[in-house]
């Protein structure tokens, strides 16, 4: 098992010990190594097999001949159950997903990063512990409960204060999604700031930096990879979240003209319709294709994030 290190002098003492070890010990160790190896590659196996499964379900419609991918991506007409002319265009839902996520990030990023900076740099140890526990509790609230709040509390408030005709809209979904992403951004962001070596802080302080200068000019550049990762994980959460946005955005298929319009997201569409689409039908397969699209989107977000982070690291 042990590979002799070429720099070391011949270490035959290891070899002798290996030879005298009982067979079960050697066998046990090999088994454990194998198991851990399996655990390690299982992530790859799962990702690949999920993708293959979803793609396999979607493939017949994609290659069936009468289906147009361009229409799927760039048409806003979603009439999967029409008797005479079935049309499957998800552009409105793509726009819906991005508008809700966008509003959520506009709210959640400043809030989340602000909270992370406060927890990591400003507050005392007792406040810090309390805040961290409470924020973790916030992350533990099930998404359907958030949807509930959006549907009942938030929608009334929005109607009352903005005069929108319906309270379930982009703003509502965005706020709910923001509240759900803040805990992730805070905890990852706080970890990133905590990982900045204290010697950087001392360097800044000893040069006479104020607290804000220290944060802007020292901590932000030092922690930017981690902070970016925090934001992108928040985006990932926003794109993938289903139940809360299903309940809070109003579920209307059309291109919104403002943040007080109702929209439908890709995820909500799948959740709402998959149960009613007959297995194997075109409708069913198009919903799986929507799944492939979502998968591709989140994959692209992650890949871009990874490339940005790598780019920063190299420089």
């Amino acid at each position, binding site marked *: 098992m042990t590979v002799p290190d070429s720099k070391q002098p011949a270490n035959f003492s290891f070899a002798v010990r290996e030879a005298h070890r009982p067979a079960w010990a050697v066998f046990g160790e090999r088994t454990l190594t194998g198991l851990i190896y399996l655990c390690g590659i299982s992530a790859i196996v799962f990702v690949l097999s999920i993708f293959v499964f979803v793609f396999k379900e979607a493939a017949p419609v994609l290659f069936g001949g009468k289906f147009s991918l361009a229409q799927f991506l760039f048409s806003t007409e979603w009439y999967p159950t029409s008797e005479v002319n079935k049309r499957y265009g998800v552009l409105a839902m793509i726009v819906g997903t991005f508008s809700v996520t966008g509003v959520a990030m506009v709210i959640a990023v400043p809030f989340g990063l602000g909270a992370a900076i406060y927890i990591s740099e400003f507050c005392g140890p007792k406040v810090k512990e309390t805040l961290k526990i409470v924020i973790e509790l916030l992350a533990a609230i099930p998404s359907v409960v958030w949807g509930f709040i959006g549907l009942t509390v938030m929608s009334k408030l929005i109607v009352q204060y903005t005069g929108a005709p319906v309270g379930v809209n982009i703003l509502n979904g965005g706020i709910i999604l923001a509240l759900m992403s803040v805990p992730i951004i805070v905890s990852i962001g706080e970890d990133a700031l905590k990982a900045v070596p204290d*010697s950087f802080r*001392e*360097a*800044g*302080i000893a*040069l*006479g930096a104020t607290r804000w200068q220290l944060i802007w*000019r020292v901590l932000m*550049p030092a922690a930017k990879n981690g902070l970016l990762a925090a934001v992108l994980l928040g985006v990932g959460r926003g794109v993938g979240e289903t139940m809360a946005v299903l309940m809070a955005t109003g579920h209307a298929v059309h291109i919104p003209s403002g943040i007080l319009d109702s929209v439908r997201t890709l995820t909500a569409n799948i959740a709402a319709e998959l149960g009613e689409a007959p297995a194997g039908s075109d409708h069913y397969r198009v919903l799986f294709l929507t799944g492939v699209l979502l998968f591709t989107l989140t994959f692209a977000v992650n890949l871009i994030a990874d490339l940005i982070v790598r780019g920063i690291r190299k*420089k």
Partner: protein
Amino acid sequence: MSDTPPLSITTRKLNLWYAKFQALINVDVDIKHGIITSLIGPSGCGKTTLLRCFNRVNERYGYVTTTGEIKLLGKNIYDPDVSLIELRKSVGMVFQRPNPLPISVYENVVFGMKIHHERSQLTRAALDEAVEKALTETGLWKDLKDRLDHRATALQLEQQQKLCIARLLPLKPEIILMDEPCSALDVEGTRAIEELMFALKGRYTIVIVTHNMAQARRASDECIFMLLGELIEHSRTEDLFLKPRNPKTAEYIEGRYG
């Protein structure tokens, strides 16, 4: 030599506690202007603590209590009207491990200028000039002039430590505090930093904490020996090493403990 050389740093009855532990006990010290003074003593004797009092960087930990007086250039730095920011601008510090900021070489050198001046007061030309001057003075210009946009944390340790000294210079500090600046460096790096200290001496008062007695002996003009939070002896370096007045000093420099 003039009869009364001007003093840079004086302390009177300086006591310091980390929570309940007293790290400095009635320290009275007079550090002269424009020379290199070294602080030596075994681990835990308070030499780093004393150094970190001079720019009040100790206070970032909430559990530190300080009593007594520290005068820098005649001004008590514990007076309520003292601005910590101005104090730290005129007292630069070099740390044990080189800690350039994770930004470019150029930005590291102008960091101090940027935080102490309004953006409108700084022209690109002024910044460029300051960078060239500071890097030339620290002997880095030749090696780094084509790599000003490289990340400072990727440089060799010796260059990093020189850069940490270079970034102090644009602020025109009166005093430079060095906390074991060579302990992370090899022999060549140590020699380079010591040569740099000699080059800077005269214009700046340099106080250096060192574990390395040979370094104190060859690189400092005056030497302070501390033990268990107390100042035991302060004299010219050659006197301290050749004819120490206090028997504890003699035992330490002979290597009986520490």
